[in-house]
Structure formats: structure tokens, C-alpha cells
């Protein structure tokens, strides 16, 4: 089925960004337009998902060039779900940004760049062309560079150097891998590549190319030996920007990994073993990294790394059950990580610091807000029946069936350490009485209490919204699991995807 409707999430972000550029420095108008545009895009994404779910894979050939010659946009259930969850996060973050981003940042183009970033994300999810994927990745990283450095504080600049260098290196490695793949097959269309790569005789070269792609995507998604840039850069930008980064930028790397290794290069035993080891190391290192951090946002950064391990584990096991678990975890993680950083922003506004020894007494001051935050934190840990629990069942089951007991041990350890870390954070930030002022410290005025009620609402409402979504993921788990299983089945048998892109008779002819 062919439909131009599917690039609408991308086009709307682009148009909004351009309109906002013309409204330079008129921040009130910018805020209103941004929120409205995000709500419209959310509605479009819901429609796109419903249509994809009902009618099957939708494709669009840019410029009417038939695949594999032109650029193809494909919306299967996986892509449209990613677009949907991205749009939910976008609505929440843009509402939150209207208050939490300071005026100077808004005057110098926060909202236009925000929309360019989301255009890149939606493009990366919807494209069916590997070079086009590279271009969308570049759109995403150049926008994230600007958001990272916007404001120009010294810590931001220092962390930006690491972030920029590692992401540019990842792009070069990705480009190198594309070059080799093009040399091997002479094609760039993902569906066409899927057919042609399977026919290559020299499997050694295919596997090396696959590993190059793994390194390129791995740097972006922060897996074990390649994650060091993440904890040293994600804690510096303002919370709303950190929420975009933590919630979505690493996940686009995971999306690319899942798409690439289930469609184009089907991993052999060696590559899945590499994935398993990487997953084990990521889980353990991320978990223990989070234990030693005393700054809330640094701790969350390590938890991002830790939980990336669950998704890589799904890829390492490479069975339908495991992939369904990994996909479910991906959806859960987008919502919950975005929410975590939004929560940390409110804590910072109330207390003026992120360091746990100086925090405390939040529960006594704001009991209702604390309970809201508790739901977020418990969902992250995966206390049943909240959302983090269900995908783990699948992952445990799959690794039990595959007899990968070390992986099970690593996943259990990571879950327990996450629980420990969150319990520690709960006692330090919420339960502990507020520590007495050190010598030389001045009293911090609670920035949250002095706000107008409407501003407070704009800060808290996005968190409520995302919490409701994650509660739905938890209590309506059978629906999300149904979708995840559907996606996993599509991943194990890619012929519908290939047929939808290249036409019905393509598989019979070859």
C-alpha cells in the first residue's frame, strides 16, 4: 500500500521549525506554536499507527522512483510505534520546556532546533534506505550538538567536546560501513539489501561489515566499551534537553541496531555471542556505575547505560520471545527515561542542587509530588505490575530457553542494583531530613514554591502525562505485548517488509 501520509510526522516538524525560525526571539508565540504542533503531530502519529496496524506495511517512494532506485519511506508497526512514542515524549517535553528552559535559551532558537531534532528522529524511524538513515542521524546529531551547547556554560562546553567527538566518530564508522556494504551489493535500499546480502558468498566480509555497523550504532546507543561519553555529558544540559537525549537519542541507536540486524544482516552465532557478552558487560558496568554516583542526574545517566543492556540482550538471544521483550523494553524505556529527567528537573528547581548528600526532606515538603515521582521510580525498577516488569519476563524466559544462564544472572543483578540505587535515592532525597547548612552556604529559595499555579501545572502535567502512559504500559501490558510480538514476528520473517517495498513478485523471481 502506497501513501504519502506517512511522511507527515516529519514534514510537520520541519514546517514548524521553519515557521519558528521566522518568529525569532518572540518566545511566547514560539511556545504556543510548538506545543500545538506537537499535539497535532501526536494525533497524526496515532492515525499513522492505527492505519499501519489495520492495513499492514505502508510505503512511499520519494519522487515516484520505484524501489530500489529511489528513496523509500516505510512505515511498519515497529516504525509507527517508535514515531508514536517519540511524539508522546515530544508533547511532554515541549510542555515542560515552556517553563523550565530559561528565556535566553528560548530566544536563541531552542524551539526551532527542538523541532529539527524530532524531524530527524521521525525520519530515522520511517526511512527504508540505509544512506538516508545516515542523513537523518546527522540531522539528529547536529541538532543535539546545538541543544547541548545552547547557553554556553563552561561544564556544557566541556562535555560537548566529548559528545561531539564521539558522535562524529560514530558517523564516520557508520559511513565506512555503508561504503563497504555498497561495494558488496551495489544497493542502498534496505529491503533490496536484505535480498542481496543473503546471496553474498564471502560471509567473512559480511560479518566484518556487520560489526562495523554495530560499532557505529553502538557508540550512539552507548553499549559497554563505547559508552564513556554518555555519563560525562548527559548531566550538563538543562533537564528538558537531557530528557530528550536520555529518552530518545540512545534509543534511535537501538532502533537502528534492531532494524539492521533483523533485516539486512542476519547475525550468525559469532555476532550473537558478541551481543550477549556486550549485553552482560553493559548491564553490570552500568549498574555499578550508578551505585557510586552521588549526583542524581549522573546516576540516571548510568542507569540509561545499564538498561540499554536489556535491549542488546534481546538481540543477543535472537529468538522471537527475546526480541518481543527487547521491543517492549524499548517502548517502556523511552517513556520512563524521559520522565526521569523531567523529575530530576523539578527536584533541581525545588532544591537548587543535584547532589544527594545536600538533598533531603522532599517528602515532608511535597507529599503528593513525591508520590507521583515514586510511581515513576518504581516503574523504572519494574515492580509488578508496573511497566518495567513485563518485558523482563520475556527476556528471562528466552535466555532460560537458550540456556544462557550468565545473561540471566546479569539481568537479575542489574535489576537488583537498580532497585538498590532507587531505594538509596528515595531515602537520600525524599525521606532523609534536610541536612543542616554547611559553613559558607547560603539558604536556597525554593524555586518551585514561588511559581505561579499555571507554571507549576505546566511543569507537573507532562510528568503526570508520561506517568499515565507508563501506567498504561504496565496495566495494559497485554496490548503492548501483542504489538511487540507482532513486531518480533515481522522481524523473524522479513518477507512482508521486502514485498511491501519491492513489489509482490520480487521473492518468487529470484
Amino acid at each position, binding site marked *: 500500500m502506497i501513501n504519502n501520509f506517512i511522511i507527515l510526522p516529519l514534514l510537520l516538524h520541519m514546517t514548524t521549525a521553519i515557521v519558528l525560525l521566522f518568529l525569532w526571539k518572540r518566545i511566547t508565540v514560539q511556545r504556543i506554536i510548538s506545543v500545538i504542533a506537537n499535539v497535532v503531530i501526536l494525533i497524526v502519529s496515532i492515525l499513522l499507527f492505527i492505519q499501519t496496524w489495520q492495513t499492514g506495511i505502508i510505503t512511499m517512494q520519494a519522487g515516484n522512483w520505484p524501489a530500489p532506485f529511489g528513496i523509500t519511506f516505510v512505515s511498519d508497526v515497529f516504525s509507527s510505534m517508535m514515531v508514536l512514542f517519540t511524539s508522546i515524549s515530544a508533547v511532554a517535553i515541549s510542555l515542560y520546556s515552556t517553563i523550565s528552559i530559561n528565556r535566553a535559551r528560548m530566544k536563541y532558537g531552542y524551539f526551532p532546533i527542538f523541532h529539527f531534532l524530532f524531524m530527524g528522529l521521525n525520519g530515522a524511524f520511517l526511512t527504508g534506505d540505509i544512506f538516508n538513515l545516515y542523513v537523518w542521524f*546527522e540531522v539528529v546529531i547536529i541538532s543535539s550538538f546545538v541543544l547541548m551547547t545552547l547557553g554556553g556554560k563552561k561544564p556544557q562546553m*566541556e562535555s560537548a567536546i566529548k559528545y561531539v567527538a564521539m558522535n*562524529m566518530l560514530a558517523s564516520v564508522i557508520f559511513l565506512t560501513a555503508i561504503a*563497504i556494504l555498497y*561495494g558488496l551489493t551495489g544497493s542502498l535500499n534496505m529491503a533490496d539489501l536484505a535480498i542481496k546480502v543473503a546471496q553474498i558468498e564471502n560471509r567473512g566480509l559480511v560479518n566484518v561489515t556487520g560489526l562495523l555497523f554495530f560499532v557505529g550504532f553502538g557508540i550512539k546507543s552507548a553499549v559497554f566499551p563505547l559508552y564513556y561519553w554518555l555519563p560525562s555529558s548527559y548531566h550538563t544540559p538543562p533537564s528538558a534537553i537531557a530528557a530528550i537525549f536520555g529518552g530518545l537519542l540512545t534509543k534511535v541507536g537501538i532502533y537502528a541496531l534492531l532494524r539492521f540486524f533483523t533485516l539486512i544482516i542476519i547475525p550468525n552465532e559469532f555476532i550473537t555471542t558478541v551481543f550477549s557478552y556486550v549485553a552482560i558487560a553493559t548491564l553490570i558496568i552500568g549498574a555499578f556505575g550508578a551505585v557510586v554516583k552521588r549526583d542524581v542526574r549522573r546516576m540516571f545517566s548510568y542507569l540509561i547505560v545499564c538498561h540499554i543492556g536489556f535491549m542488546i540482550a534481546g538481540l543477543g538471544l535472537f529468538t522471537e520471545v527475546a526480541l518481543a521483550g527487547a521491543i517492549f523494553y524499548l517502548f517502556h524505556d523511552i517513556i520512563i527515561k524521559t520522565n526521569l529527567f523531567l523529575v530530576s528537573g523539578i527536584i533541581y528547581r525545588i532544591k537548587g542542587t543535584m547532589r544527594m548528600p545536600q538533598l533531603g526532606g522532599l517528602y515532608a515538603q511535597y507529599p503528593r509530588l513525591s508520590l507521583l515521582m515514586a510511581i515513576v521510580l518504581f516503574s523504572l525498577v519494574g515492580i509488578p505490575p508496573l511497566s518495567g516488569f513485563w518485558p523482563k519476563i520475556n527476556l528471562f524466559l528466552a535466555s532460560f530457553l537458550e540456556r544462557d544462564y550468565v545473561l540471566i544472572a546479569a539481568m537479575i543483578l542489574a535489576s537488583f542494583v537498580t532497585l538498590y540505587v532507587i531505594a538509596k535515592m528515595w531515602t537520600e532525597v525524599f525521606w532523609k531530613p534536610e541536612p543542616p547548612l554547611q559553613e559558607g552556604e547560603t539558604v536556597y529559595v525554593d524555586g518551585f514554591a514561588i511559581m505561579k499555579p499555571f507554571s507549576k501545572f505546566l511543569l507537573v502535567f507532562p510528568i503526570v502525562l508520561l506517568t499515565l502512559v507508563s501506567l498504561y504500559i504496565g496495566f495494559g501490558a497485554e496490548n503492548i505485548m501483542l504489538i511487540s510480538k507482532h513486531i518480533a514476528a515481522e522481524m523473524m520473517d522479513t518477507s512482508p517488509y521486502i514485498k511491501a517495498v519491492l513489489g509482490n513478485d520480487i521473492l518468487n523471481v529470484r
Partner: protein
Amino acid sequence: MELLLVVLIGILYGTGIYLMLRRSMVKLLIGLLLLGNGANLLIFLLGDLTKEKPPVIPADSNIFTAIYADPIPQSLILTAIVISFGLQSFAIILLKRVYLATGSDNLDDLNTHDIDI
């Protein structure tokens, strides 16, 4: 010609990675630049070099009759060059701002706010 390009690509990747491993920020940037150029040449090389056969259909024919040079790698390189131009100009400005903020070209001096263990 192919062999020359292969050697050149090897040198560009090697020097690029060597420079990235140095402590100086300027060398890090030059390293990234060389790596990017190496990747562009690699695309060019892997598109199968064909000399003096432009991909133009002759006037008296409707289809290609002889071997022709693949035009796609060149368009890919063009895209990659434009993208890397943008990224590099951003990185150069960033570098200058970081230098103004920290007063140092050494990457090890960038951890001033990492007081947390």
C-alpha cells in the same frame, strides 16, 4: 589507480585515528576531518572506478549499451561532504569557545566539573 587510492585511504584512516588519540583538541578535530575524507574516498573506490564512461545515454539510443561509471557514489560523497562541512564548522567554533572558557588545548583539562567520584 585503485592501488593508489587504497594506500591513500589507509594513510588517511591511520593518521586520523593517530591524531584522535592525541591530547590536543585541535589534533582531535584534524583527526576527525581526515577520517571523514578517508570514508569519502572509500565510497568512491568501492563504487568501482570506471574511466571515461559517463553515465549518459547516447542520443541515438534509449538504453545504456556499454559499461558506464556508477553515478551514485559521487552523489553519496557529495551529500557526505556537505554534511561533514557543517559538522566541522560547528566543531571549530565549539573548539574556540571551549578554548576561551578553559584557556587550554589539552583534553585532560576538560574535567573541571567532574568533582563527583
